[in-house]
């Protein structure tokens, strides 16, 4: 049997790509691209969370960007209220959002499929209204901490004061997020989730506490979303309610499916489509809304030809290519 920390070829490819991104990418990026890549990496972490929930349990959460907003709000609130270092704010924001994810899981335990998706979408809509009404803390007084004018400084991590270092920091956090998910998949929870997805009755017959494991999965999704929101807050030093609309949650879920929810490459494709593509269109002087057309084409392509998403299709193609080559060599 393979060990818990066995690294698959796909895993090595991921680590190699992350190493390249950490070592090379910040050095060759302008400040515009630094901010694009940092925000793409934050969304990568959030997409990993929502893709995980869909791939492992077949559950659709349309609140992920709302959960990022919750994590970001908590991180900003803590930043202006206390003198904690960034890591403490990040951890507290992620953990609080995890608890929020558990609350969100309550309806999930009774509903599935379309109904669950609708409940999470309503939660996202509720959060959108709260963010629009109360805004994000920027150093003002009181509980909501909002003032007019320029916001107070946001403390970045001690290790990552510059924009280049902060991009590296966020990429490493995203990699840790993927490793966290993969370790879960290989351990007891991953096996329980696989059986729950197969059938809840068989999971119960195997002694799996279905309620507990579904709640656990929602907690992980919340944890990753919250961490992503706190990291995004650190990138910009402030957050805008326009970022966390319910429609964005729907968008990143759809892109996670287009990319391929079962693969890290799929989450990466989704993050690139969501953040890097519009930035590229911007630079080329094309209306960034064109990206919606491309998303739509990607979705149609995935629905018609690629049930495992673009990443699944590409990996499948790569595998059959290698197999064909192996046969010719033999």
């Amino acid at each position, binding site marked *: 049997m393979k060990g818990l920390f066995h690294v698959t070829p796909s895993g090595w490819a991921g680590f190699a790509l992350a190493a390249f991104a950490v070592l090379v990418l910040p050095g060759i990026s302008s400040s515009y691209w630094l901010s694009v890549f940092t925000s793409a990496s934050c969304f990568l972490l959030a997409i990993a969370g929502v893709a995980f929930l869909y791939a492992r349990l077949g559950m659709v959460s349309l609140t992920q960007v709302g959960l990022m907003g919750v994590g970001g709000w908590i991180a900003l609130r803590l930043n202006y209220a206390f003198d904690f270092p960034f890591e403490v704010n990040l951890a507290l924001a992620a953990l609080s959002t995890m608890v929020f994810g558990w609350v969100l899981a309550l309806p999930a335990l009774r509903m599935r499929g379309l109904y669950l998706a609708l409940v999470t979408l309503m939660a996202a809509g509720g959060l959108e209204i709260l963010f629009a009404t109360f805004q994000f803390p920027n150093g003002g007084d009181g509980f909501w901490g909002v003032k007019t004018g320029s916001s107070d400084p946001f403390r970045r991590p001690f290790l990552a004061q510059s924009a280049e270092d902060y991009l590296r920091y966020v990429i490493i956090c995203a990699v840790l997020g993927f490793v966290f998910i993969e370790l879960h998949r290989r351990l007891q929870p991953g096996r*329980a989730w*696989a*059986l729950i997805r197969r059938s809840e009755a068989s999971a119960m*017959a195997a*002694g799996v*506490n279905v309620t507990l494991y579904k709640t656990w999965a929602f907690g992980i999704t919340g944890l990753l979303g919250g961490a992503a929101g706190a990291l995004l807050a650190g990138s910009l030093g402030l957050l805008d309610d326009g970022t966390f609309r319910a429609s964005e949650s729907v968008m990143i879920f759809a892109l996670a499916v287009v990319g391929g929810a079962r693969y890290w490459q799929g989450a990466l494709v989704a993050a690139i489509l969501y953040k890097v593509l519009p930035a590229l269109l911007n630079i080329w002087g094309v209306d960034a809304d064109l990206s919606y057309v491309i998303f739509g084409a990607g979705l149609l392509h995935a629905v018609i030809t690629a049930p495992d998403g673009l990443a699944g299709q590409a990996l499948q193609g790569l595998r059959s290519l290698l197999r064909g080559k192996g046969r010719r060599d033999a």
Partner: protein
Amino acid sequence: MLEIRNVTVRFGGVIALNDVSASFGRAVSGIIGPNGAGKTTLMNVLSGFVGTQSGSVTRDGQDLLRLAPHRRAHWGLRRSFQKEEIADDLTVYENVLVQIDHARAVSGSKQAEVETMLELVGMASRAGKLGADLSGFERRLTDVAKCLVGKPRVVMFDEPAGGMSVDETRQLGVLIQQIHGATGAQVLVIDHDVDLIREVCEETLVLDFGRRIAFGPTDDVLSDPKVKAAYLGTEEV
């Protein structure tokens, strides 16, 4: 002794089980009956997926009906489904491990026990194969191995021979007869295949339209005119 007392189940106006009682005391017991007789309902009552209007099910002083379904598994109840429930993206080994992950009473290492039971059902050499790559019979064998790990007390099979060839059914019968010796568990088999029941079960309960129409040693039960009538629709052939 698995004691089923006066179990009644209604689905709206339909009485799926009508005051059914039976005390299963042998190593392997069978439950047979025509389609719609209530066999699977009785198994679902035992595993907790269907609630009862009245009645009790006790074994070793434990009233099973008081426990949530997953707690019955912790207690030592195992069951297979008509369609084998093997997760496609887990290996054979992991599919069995998931059962013992949540078992309370394990002697020695979980890994060792999984390997022993895979050896017993003859799947040890294919332990690393993914569920998706298994044949129907391999999936069934993996399902049997799942039922054997973690010190089971009662193992129930719901039509295990469905879709199997004659030869596979015979192999499965031999395997089912080894379960009591290997684990100490009591086995209940539901099937349409009267030959399989005659082969492996020492005692048999016959249900028809939710009622018990016969219970006792298998050979006596199968030669009972009432049982023949239930199966063939006439008094005597």
